[in-house]
């Protein structure tokens, strides 16, 4: 009896009431913060759907970007984006996978690896506009003109660190017992990596590449002064090449209603692509885990 009495007394004390109140306030704020964060996602996606879906029609995919005041589509921009993205992946992925392999397999603990790891992390979050300046200096300025190649190289520079990072992480998840088993039957290291480790980490490495594609398909800044833009359909890699993000940038800031409408449609297309890719990438890894 006595203990119960003292317990209720303690529970009613102002100190305890204060602590409980603070706890409740903090919990409430945490909930509010989460709703606040999710609210932006809903708001942005909602506006995007509302503004973009009206302009969505077949002509978006079959006609080129129009001159001011006329109707048209985004065909040349979409094709330009696809071509440059594919090239960037083709250039960047082998380098990224090989470098990631070195970090995880050959030089797990050596000095070079820790330096490369650090530098790679810096590149991973380096401002993309700086990458654009870099490619401008090494390709556009010497060549004397903007080109699709320069755009693809700029995107490849962004692909490399993403792929390096995921490749290393995924190879690190492969159990060492597999490697030892391969070594014990006399399989040389290169064969062990290619036939055992790569195969075990396959889904993860593909995820990394998908994430890299998702990242570059929305990139605008590095393309502004490498690939520039082109009003016409062009598959000439040595000429300026249009891309979806740059067209959106140009059209959104223009005073013409048709252009702005196309910009919203393009924005919707990009967002659906990027979010779709990252969800696909995520489901690949989680399916593997379970």
């Amino acid at each position: 009896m006595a203990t119960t009495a003292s317990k209720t007394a303690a529970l009613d004390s102002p100190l305890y009431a204060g602590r409980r109140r603070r706890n409740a306030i903090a919990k409430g704020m945490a909930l509010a913060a989460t709703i606040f964060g999710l609210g932006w996602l809903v708001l942005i996606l909602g506006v995007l759907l509302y503004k973009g879906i009206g302009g969505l029609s077949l002509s978006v995919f079959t006609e080129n970007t129009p001159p001011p005041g006329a109707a048209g589509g985004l065909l040349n921009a979409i094709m330009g984006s696809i071509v440059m993205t594919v090239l960037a992946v083709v250039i960047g992925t082998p380098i990224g996978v090989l470098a990631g392999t070195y970090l995880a397999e050959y030089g797990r603990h050596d000095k070079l690896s820790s330096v490369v790891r650090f530098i790679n992390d810096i590149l991973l979050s380096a401002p993309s506009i700086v990458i654009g300046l870099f490619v401008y200096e090494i390709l556009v300025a010497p060549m004397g003109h903007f080109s699709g190649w320069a755009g693809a190289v700029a995107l490849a520079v962004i692909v490399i660190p993403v792929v390096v990072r995921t490749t290393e992480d995924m190879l690190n998840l492969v159990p060492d017992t597999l490697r030892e088993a391969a070594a014990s039957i006399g399989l040389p290291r290169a064969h062990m990596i290619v036939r055992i480790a790569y195969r075990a980490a396959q889904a993860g490495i593909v995820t990394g590449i998908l994430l890299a594609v998702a990242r570059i398909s929305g990139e605008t800044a590095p393309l502004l002064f490498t690939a520039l833009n082109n009003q016409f359909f062009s598959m000439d890699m040595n000429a300026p090449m249009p891309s979806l993000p740059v067209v959106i940038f140009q059209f959104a800031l223009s005073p013409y209603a048709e252009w702005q409408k196309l910009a919203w449609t393009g924005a919707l297309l990009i967002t659906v692509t990027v979010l779709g890719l990252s969800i696909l990438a995520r489901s690949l890894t989680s399916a593997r885990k379970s």
Partner: protein
Amino acid sequence: MASGERDVSEVALKGASAPAAVSASRAAVLRRLRLTDTIFHGLTRGASLAVLALLSGVIIALIYGAAPALSTFGFGFLFDESWNPVTERFGALAPIFGTLVTSFIAMVIAVPVGLMVAFFLTELCPKVLRRPIGIAIELLAGIPSIIYGIWGLFVFAPFLQQYVQPFFIDTFANVPILSTLFAGPPYGIGMFTAGLILAIMVLPFVTSISRDVFDAVPPVLKEAAYGVGCTTWEVFRYVVLPFTRVGVIGGFMLGLGRALGETMAVTFVIGNAHHVSASLFAPGTTISASIANEFTEAVGDLYTSSLVALGLILFFITFIVLAIARYMLMRLQRQGGK
């Protein structure tokens, strides 16, 4: 590689009949295996050296491109507010100022909100909702920055201009310092708007890293704190946060790195005015926005070079911030590995 394997088995089969021939062909196979091994090792090593070369290349190219501007203006470049393409007088003060101010606004908002979201996700959220909410927050990070830009320009800025900014201006009109910070006509676009949009973009970074480090806190520590009667908030505030301090700061730094270098979202809503202004509602510019807006139109070597010099400064600032972030996160990993 498939042929290599077949050779090995052939060698093994032949082994019984012709010992001398075996050792010769076996040596050949082994030589070839060793050769492919060396080549592959060399390739991977070369690729990782290429990553190093890439970063050095970026630095060298930027310094090379910035050299004319830096030699013309010297250190004064950093502290000069003027930006005049006609007289060819350029200074980086306004863009640097804008970059720092917008990033500061972003961090002031994103850090507490991000921490609270992470607190919610790790301590309060029902298990079923944890993953979907986490993914939703991360999707926020996946939205391309140009989408934030177009949304900011057409939806968010007009909203701020109509409702939020007049309210701030009226409310703080007579408060000494705040009246200067929130002064002037509500343009809608400007440093305030850019800072808010950056906050939304940085939020998922702060949240996901904080959540990951909070999850890494040993349950025993939390249970002990609950055992002595701590409330959920007290456990978070006095056990989880101090334990994960280093990692959380690392996460902030990563977010800050993104805010500093963010280009497209800011370019849409900053107003591109090369002025240092005390009011947050005034249009300004950031380093990345200046480059994005002006680079293709820059006439003359000095103009272009000044913009590259801006890029060099940006790279330098973000390099330091990111290096600190990585160092902090690495320290945490080492701590956890003990």
